[in-house]
């Protein structure tokens, strides 16, 4: 298992792929604060240069920075993470490295777990660096930063990442090529995103709520009882998807 993790880490570290999530996380974090802080100023400048003087824009608050952070991360970072994930999960098959790997005494759950762990590690480290950038910028530009609520919201986002990584892995072992699993994962992603607008009845418990919960936590607008069900269901679903991926992998040709 340790060797597999090292093998998968080399995939990130010996190629420029580790730069992608890191650069994106830092960029989105900085952009979220900067755009929240200066968007109105920019808009006012543009409107005045167009001769429109009597427009009053609402004052900017720190909440706008949080909103932009999570929107950007759900819409962009997660998408890029899925691209990276599907590539990591399928490249051993599409490049025929499996004849080297599975000729060795490897266990299929270890093989899958290693890939998930390494991808999550790469994403987590990138997000933590982005977190620090975001915290510093927010504190500097708005004079405040809600550390504890943000940490809670951050881990809800991480739960969503874990779930989508497992969806990507399931489709990857099913198809073993890049395009089909990517498209199917994106379909699931957009489907779940669209469910996020419903929060009544059963929808309140679905992992689709993971899109709404982070902001609600920061706004102090949610109770633990509302946060836990979608988070727990997402984690349980991730575990089920992992075991399903393993069963599929064992049943399909490994080359």
């Amino acid at each position, binding site marked *: 298992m340790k060797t597999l993790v090292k093998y998968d880490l080399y995939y990130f570290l010996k190629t420029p792929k580790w730069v992608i999530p890191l650069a994106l996380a830092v960029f989105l974090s900085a952009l979220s604060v900067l755009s929240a802080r200066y968007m109105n100023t920019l808009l006012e400048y543009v409107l005045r240069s167009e001769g429109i003087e009597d427009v009053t824009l609402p004052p900017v608050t720190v909440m706008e920075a949080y909103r932009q952070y999570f929107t950007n991360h759900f819409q962009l970072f997660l998408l890029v993470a899925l691209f990276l994930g599907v590539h990591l999960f399928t490249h051993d098959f599409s490049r025929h*490295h499996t004849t*080297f790997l599975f000729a060795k005494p490897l266990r*299929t759950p270890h093989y899958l777990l290693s890939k998930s762990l390494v991808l999550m590690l790469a994403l987590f480290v990138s997000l933590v660096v982005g977190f620090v950038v975001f915290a510093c910028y927010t504190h500097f530009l708005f004079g405040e930063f809600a550390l504890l609520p943000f940490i809670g919201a951050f881990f809800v986002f991480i739960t969503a990442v874990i779930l989508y990584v497992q969806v990507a892995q399931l489709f990857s072992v099913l198809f073993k090529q890049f395009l089909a699993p990517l498209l199917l994962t994106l379909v699931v992603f957009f489907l779940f995103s669209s469910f996020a607008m419903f929060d009544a009845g059963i929808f309140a418990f679905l992992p689709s709520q993971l899109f709404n919960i982070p902001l609600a936590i920061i706004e102090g607008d949610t109770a633990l009882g509302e946060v836990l069900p979608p988070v727990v269901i997402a984690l349980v679903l991730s575990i089920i998807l992992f075991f399903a991926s393993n069963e599929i992998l064992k*049943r399909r040709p490994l080359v």
Partner: protein
Amino acid sequence: MTLLRIENLKKAFGDIHALRGVSLSVEKNEIYGFIGRNGAGKTTTLNILMSFLRKDAGRIIFAGEEIGFLDVAYKKKIGFVPDVPAFPPYLTGREILTFAADFLGIHENKREKVEEALAFSGLKDVRQKVGTYSRGMRQRLSIAQALLGDSQLLVMDEPTSALDPVGRREVLDLIKRLKEERTILYSTHILSDAESVADRIGLIDKGKILLESPMAEIKKTKDLTAYIVQTDLPVEELAEKLETEPFIKETKAEEDGLLCLLSGEGAEKRLLSRLSGLDLTVYKFVEKTPSLEDAFVEVLHENAR
């Protein structure tokens, strides 16, 4: 002593029966040439042997023990060399071998064993990444990683088929150097390669083993003799006149005349008699050892009949 025994292996892909009850046995310290045409079932057999594919029926017995699907302990005792080896291009050969050693659980003298394998495959001084390797170098690296861990059995799936003549020679030389030290199951459709390295041959066609025999006996078993005949007639014309004879299995134009592959008792006398009945001058009538290819074609013809 039998190291590997495959019994009645069956595999179908939908309606296509790739293996129809393959049985073979590989003795310890021999090179077993597993030969057959493309699509005969060689790679499917080896993929099942390596647990890359599930079997439909049959048994695989290695060192006296039946092997299950994805048996981890068994995989520590075998090495695999595919036809076109692929490794992560961003790693060096040394890193690949270190990973292979780690996967195999080699802790003691790991570095020495990796260096030894690199030296054996002639890659000790190569520092560049695998992505820049030639096909021959990649195949030698593949053999090196399969040798790690003192594997008892090397399974080679057409290791020379994708190589140029130089790469092919290098790989065959490596295999010859392993003779007597390791047991090798060597699959190929290049019969001259099998002839140059194998001790025993198993011939597979349409998912069935048609023949299994020691190399030295295979040509005797088929009661084949070959003669080179050179006359004043053009080779094609001579072939036309002789091809109708039932004791002549095959004719082939060669550099020094017409190669006649004969079968049956007294076939050479009957050939001489037939030649004397033709209006021609015989310049050359020389016996030649039939090749594995001749025996292979004869077995396939027999099976088709």
